[in-house]
């Protein structure tokens, strides 16, 4: 029952999901993270999976902040859509969450702790992003090898589920990633992201290159697995209209700043989809757009 231990250990049970009461996540067990999270230290868990407080990020050799005083909090077990134009700062936010970068100012907390090079957090944050060049080092292995790596590095890894997903996406276990089609490679990465069952699962344009059938398959699987194992999912996408039903929360950033953060159902009004809203908020002067 390792994954249930983790869900509890992070303090991220299933409170926010409707059918959670029948789910066994409330069992308290001890684990390394439980101790650190419940020890009553300043970093103890607050019910938020993600907390950004005045986070700024400036890349070396640049004169402008890629992120400027970004603050937002994401409750546990929500599926949040992260929308922003190219260069708005989506990937910077996600890299900070994955512990790959340190903010220049402000604090980042994941399950109450600083994720940067934090070995008690990093295994529980899966960060799936587009790595689609066939000659990328990460594409040198057969599909099966990635599944073995998942089992090694992800405490909540479900190997049976991973193999089930490979079949659904028609990816042979013996196929080398560099020889796959673009869509298959993207699907393979999404399979890893789903089967990791990480309490914080980040998908950064991860399905780019998938055809419409694959994308729908991915969304179906994500929702079905989320019902079984609620977790916090942050999902960046340019396909807003196709994906917007997936989200319970929406975070819109522009130019390294938070433009808006609210519940999807509050933002979606009569005659205004999330996609419409996004365009009206981020259209720059002089630009035009016809729906």
């Amino acid at each position, binding site marked *: 029952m390792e994954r249930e231990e983790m869900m509890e250990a992070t303090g991220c049970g299933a409170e*926010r*999901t*409707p*059918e959670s009461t*029948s789910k066994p996540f409330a069992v308290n067990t001890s684990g390394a993270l439980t101790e650190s999270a419940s020890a009553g230290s300043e970093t103890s868990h607050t019910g938020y999976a993600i907390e950004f407080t005045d986070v700024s990020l400036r890349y070396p050799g640049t004169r402008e902040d890629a992120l400027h005083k970004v603050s937002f909090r994401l409750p546990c077990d*929500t*599926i949040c859509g992260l929308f922003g134009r190219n260069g708005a700062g989506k990937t910077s936010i996600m890299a900070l969450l994955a512990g790959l970068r340190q903010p220049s100012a402000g604090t980042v907390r994941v399950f109450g702790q600083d994720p940067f090079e934090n070995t008690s957090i990093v295994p529980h944050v899966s960060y799936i992003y587009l790595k689609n060049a066939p000659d990328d080092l990460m594409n040198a292995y057969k599909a099966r090898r990635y599944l073995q790596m998942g089992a090694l590095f992800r405490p909540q890894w479900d190997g049976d589920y991973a193999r089930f997903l490979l079949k659904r996406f028609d990816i042979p276990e013996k196929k080398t990633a560099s020889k796959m089609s673009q869509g298959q490679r993207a699907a393979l990465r999404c399979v890893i992201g789903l089967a990791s069952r990480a309490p914080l699962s980040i998908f950064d344009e991860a399905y780019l290159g998938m055809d419409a059938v694959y994308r*729908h398959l991915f*969304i*179906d699987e994500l*929702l*079905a697995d*989320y*019902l079984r194992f609620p977790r916090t999912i942050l999902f960046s996408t340019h396909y807003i*209209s196709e994906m*917007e*039903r*997936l*989200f*319970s929360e929406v975070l819109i950033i522009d130019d390294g700043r938070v433009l808006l953060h609210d519940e*999807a*159902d509050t933002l*979606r*009004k*009569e*005659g*205004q*989809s*999330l*996609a*419409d809203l996004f365009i009206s908020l981020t259209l720059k002067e002089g630009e035009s757009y016809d729906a």
Partner: protein
Amino acid sequence: MRQALDNDRPLFLQIKELIEDAILTGELAPDDQIPSNSQLVSTYGVNPVTVHKGVSLLLDEGIIYKRRGIGMYVSREAPERIRTRYQKSFRAEYIEPLLERAVLLGISIEELGRMMGER
């Protein structure tokens, strides 16, 4: 039940309405079990929080009732209650736009009445 949802109307309302419509058409009769939240999630591909919100509204309005641990069922009063509520908005939602359009097309009230009689 209705198949497609629109992105430019609150989704929880659409979930609520599609169950109400199924009750109005008799597809769901009193004491029938309505689809579970997870069925609605997978059928319509919407977030579970959204589905929960729509179903909760039905529960609050007494359209459905809960059997603990089993599921949600259509209440006996549901068809009447839904009918009464929609009758109230029928004029504004259907008759007014119809008349407006008829005037635009030069269709007289008498003609309109004849068309309806033919059905």
